């Protein structure tokens, strides 16, 4: 086989590289960048990534123009000393805003420049106040709008929202994050455990079944194939406090005190999510394990039986070691799938128990806080990496084999 690919062969891989770059690598990189910023889409002063300060120049110019417009109206209302004060004010404002007359968008502003703007606004505010105090009996036009206009001018100075590692520090002290992590781990470990246990049992039974295997396989595939969001909705109905048959069954069996607890209490929602997940994915696990069982050489079982080994011993000594590769791969994929669970819980209970994906989505899309949201998803990313590492290095799952 040739060791290098020609440009023609490279063209065949190019579409894959492009899609992977745009829809996987770029978002991961961008999330990394977001995580260093206090980036909130619903806050005007931080709805983009500002590495340096900005002046909202068009707004600054507009506010100044309005100030002068009201001051001009006031000229006729005051005496000569007052007129001189107003003229001086107008002159200063005009000087400050005229450089931005043509500005169409925010301009970069140094820290020094930002201080100057703030000082200028404070100065004008004081002088307007002095003017009002000098003429307590006159109803000045400027008094009505000066405060709001000057406040707005203050807000035109937008500082940098680069916060470096602050977001990560916040994560370290974020109790909600750790409780989401705990929920995610509880959900993942319990669901995968039961999926493995029941899936293995089913696979062993199916491996021996004489008839009916086709039917079992077909039926197994249906829960796996329907959208998670749809199956979660089905379970919402089955769990419903008044009309849900599963909730009623569990109450009658004494598993829960009253039917509505399944979708309202903390342990109830966790159990509900786990059961729905086990229902949907156990067949998938069983099919994977069955496939693994069926490549085991039949002769081995016969020799074991000749040697007088019982079923348990045969399972531990022969089946399990030979099944290990497919078992680990199946476990790895199921663990990671369960760890990033979103659709199921988002639909089933609209977000309880709050797992990491649910928390991240609420922060990002619900609150528009893309900066901190990126910190949470990157933490998830690290967890996923650790889980994969655990399986591959510690348990020896082989994923890439030539």
């Amino acid at each position, binding site marked *: 086989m040739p060791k290098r690919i020609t440009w023609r062969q490279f063209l065949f891989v190019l579409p894959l590289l492009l899609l992977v770059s745009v829809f996987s690598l770029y978002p991961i990189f961008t999330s990394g960048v977001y995580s260093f910023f206090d980036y909130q889409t619903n806050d005007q002063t931080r709805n983009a990534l500002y590495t340096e300060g900005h002046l909202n120049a068009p707004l600054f110019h507009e506010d100044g123009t309005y100030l002068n417009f009201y001051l001009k109206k006031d000229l006729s209302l005051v005496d000569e000393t007052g007129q001189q004060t107003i003229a001086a004010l107008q002159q200063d404002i005009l000087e400050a805003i005229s450089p931005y007359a043509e500005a169409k968008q925010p301009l970069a502003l140094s820290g020094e420049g930002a201080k100057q703007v703030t000082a200028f606004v404070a100065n004008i505010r004081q002088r307007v106040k002095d003017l009002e105090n000098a003429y307590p009996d006159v109803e000045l036009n400027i008094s009505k709008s000066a405060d709001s206009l000057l406040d707005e001018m203050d807000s035109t100075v937008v500082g940098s929202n680069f916060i470096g590692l602050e977001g990560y520090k916040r994560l370290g002290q974020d109790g909600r994050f750790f409780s989401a992590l705990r929920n995610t781990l509880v959900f993942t470990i319990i669901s995968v455990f039961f999926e493995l246990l029941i899936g293995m049992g089913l696979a062993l039974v199916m491996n021996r079944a004489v008839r009916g295997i086709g039917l079992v396989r077909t039926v197994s595939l*249906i829960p796996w194939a329907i959208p998670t969001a749809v199956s979660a909705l089905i379970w919402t109905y*089955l769990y419903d406090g008044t009309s849900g048959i599963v909730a009623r069954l569990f109450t009658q069996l004494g598993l829960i005190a009253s039917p509505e607890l399944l979708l309202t209490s903390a342990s109830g929602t966790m159990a509900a999510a786990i059961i729905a997940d086990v229902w949907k994915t156990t067949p998938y696990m069983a099919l994977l394990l069955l496939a693994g069982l069926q490549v085991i050489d039949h002769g081995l079982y016969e020799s074991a039986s000749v040697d007088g080994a019982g079923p348990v011993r045969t399972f531990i000594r022969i089946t399990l070691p030979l099944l290990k590769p497919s078992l680990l791969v199946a476990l790895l994929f199921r663990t990671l799938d369960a760890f990033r669970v979103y*659709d199921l819980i988002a639909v089933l209970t609209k977000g309880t128990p709050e797992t990491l994906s649910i928390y991240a989505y609420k922060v990002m899309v619900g609150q528009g806080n893309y900066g901190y949201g990126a910190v949470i998803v990157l933490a998830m990313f690290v967890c996923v990496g650790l889980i994969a590492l655990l399986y591959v290095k510690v348990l020896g799952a082989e994923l890439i*084999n030539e």
Partner: protein
Amino acid sequence: MTTLVKTNRLKPQGSRFNPLSWLVIALFLLIMVFPFLWILITSFKPGSEIYGRDTAFRILAINPTLSNYETVLQKGILSSVKNSMIVSSITTAYVVLVASMSAYILARFTFKGKRLLMGLILGISMFPQMIIVGPVFNLYYNLKALNSYWVTLAYSTITLPSAVWIMVAHFKRIPLSIEEAARIDGCNLWQMLWKVIFPIAAPGVFTTAIMTFIAAWNEYLLTLTLNSDKAYHTVPVAINALRTQFTILWGEITAATVIVIIPTLIIVLLFQKQIVSGITSGAVKE
């Protein structure tokens, strides 16, 4: 070498069999099927029976009705089925094309960075999809691609890695000698893929297409985020939009569920062999 388990291998191995196994299987089938049956039953019940204390758990409706179906059809549930068809078909078409082209190179040639690329593809199939939501939303916002079928391109993150994976496994099973013969006959790379490899790997290509279609059909997060406009809602998003803030109309929801499950049911019944092969591909070694 990674290979597929042929479906004809799914045949019994032992002859010993006991009633306990039958019981386990029967119980399993009951648990798997019951939620669907109950949904079907409820969909024919009028609201008064669904919420009635004595009638909620009756197996057969006292006054069966089709009104739930009429209502959800009027609410346009079929337009979400249409959207899902469009989105899943587009995704399947381009993913199969892109995956087969790259899988051919990955299966047939050794080159620098190949392991890295394979590892990257595997990594993408594992990472939390939540990570792409923020940046991709901003990207689509800036390109004015929100609320459109462009969402299908973003679906590549969830469909492309496994598609490449399944294809590579299938292409590797095709003997090299066939291509050598074709090369002597003067086939170029493109002809090699389309005229030689593709027809032989057709079952694998078909498996990939089915798996991609199902994955795209089931996608929820990206459509929810990128296509907030109801006109572009796919089945998973649209059916959840039937839940209102205060009341849940189970009659309508169960009827809608029955309707949207039908396409999946047809796919499973027609293509179960390909699906089993897709699920187990790469996970089993010989």
